[in-house]
């Protein structure tokens, strides 16, 4: 990973597109994060997936810009009939989701198999 960018892995399962960003989501990467989410929602929709899971295990931290990017993605995905869920938050992301109360507006799974 280079500074100011995120690395991504993508996996598909039955009815599910699983994406895993790696790095920090802050003011320097939030736009890239939001744009990539929009692309992934479009791909999930074209592939007929009903859920897009974002694996948070390798996120170093996410600022409010990234969190609000999740909200924008949630709105966009709802228009496509896709539900965004969050998976495997590491300890820092678990705290950030709790502090922001984003764990109240997104379904959060402890492991991928539980989705």
């Amino acid at each position: 990973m280079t500074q100011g960018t995120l690395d991504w892995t993508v996996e598909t399962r039955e009815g599910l597109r699983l994406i895993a960003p790696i790095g920090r989501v802050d003011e320097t990467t939030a736009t890239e994060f939001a744009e990539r989410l929009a692309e992934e929602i479009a791909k999930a929709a074209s592939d007929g997936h009903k859920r897009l899971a974002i694996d948070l295990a390798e996120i170093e931290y996410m600022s409010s810009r990234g969190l609000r990017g999740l909200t924008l993605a949630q709105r966009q995905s709802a228009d496509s009939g896709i539900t965004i869920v969050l998976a495997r938050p590491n300890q820092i992301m678990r705290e950030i989701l709790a502090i922001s109360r984003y764990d109240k507006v997104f379904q959060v799974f402890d492991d991928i198999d539980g989705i």
Partner: protein
Amino acid sequence: MKVRFWGTRGSLPVAQKAAAIRDKIATALVAADGRRFADLDEARTFADDELEFAVGGTYGGATSCVEIEAGDEFILCDLGSGAREFGLDAMARCARGHARVYHLFMSHFHWDHIMGFPFFVPVFDPETKIVIHSGHADAELALRRQQEEISFPVAFDWLRAQISFVTLETGKPYAIGAVTVELIEQNHSHKSYGYRFTDAAGKSVVYSTDSEHKVDRMDQEAAFVAFFGDCDLVICDTMYSLADSASMKEDWGHSSNVVAIDLCHQAQAKRLALFHHEPTYSDADIQRMHQESIRYEELTREAAPLAVICAYDGLTVEV
């Protein structure tokens, strides 16, 4: 420069109920664990040093009113219900020789930011000069309307002080009293304005309340980062959680602790004061929000630490 918080609650004044006080006393007694105190001072020291603030104190319940002490003339931000107590204290200071000149800076004219004006005692003193500065051209209308007979028994024209209104523009520095003042337009119903005060020594305080940083307009935040830049103390509207501000309470005109910290981090501000507390929050709720804010600041810090304090009625901050 000093900042005194006379009212820190958002939207509506609140007061402690008997059960809340009883619970604080009960918690304090349990914490004391049978200890004996020689006198009240020793008991006060115990309360200050060993009890959580939400137990030994309270964040208060008066609505927005913040004094900036710089120079010989009064500077005040907003006229929420905290202005009543400020007015009484200011009159006492005037009796001891303080200049009877007030510069009031209004974020906007919603109810909770003007409700203290009819009870602001200096308006009855003919020797007092009050200049009401605002970004709004309809400031006078808002304050006159509040004192019409249907709402209040004392008409605006009965007030005895020399009251004048000045409309300020964004993008211009103004020398007012002992400070330089700049303002920024904020996203709020009928607009609101944030103010930056800089004293002769270069110390600065930003007052930015009732300012919504919208989820779909993050491109507008660069202007706030610049406005907060290197500020010594930024007072920010942190009424809601980020989730609430981006969902159920979107377009209600307020922001979150999380966004305030991010903006201050980017601006490399030195201190953030959490402000405009949600009226449904108990002291314990506000204290929890403060602790969570400190933790979020630690988790997302990339450069120098940002001190996160939580404003309460009666707090004085030396800048």
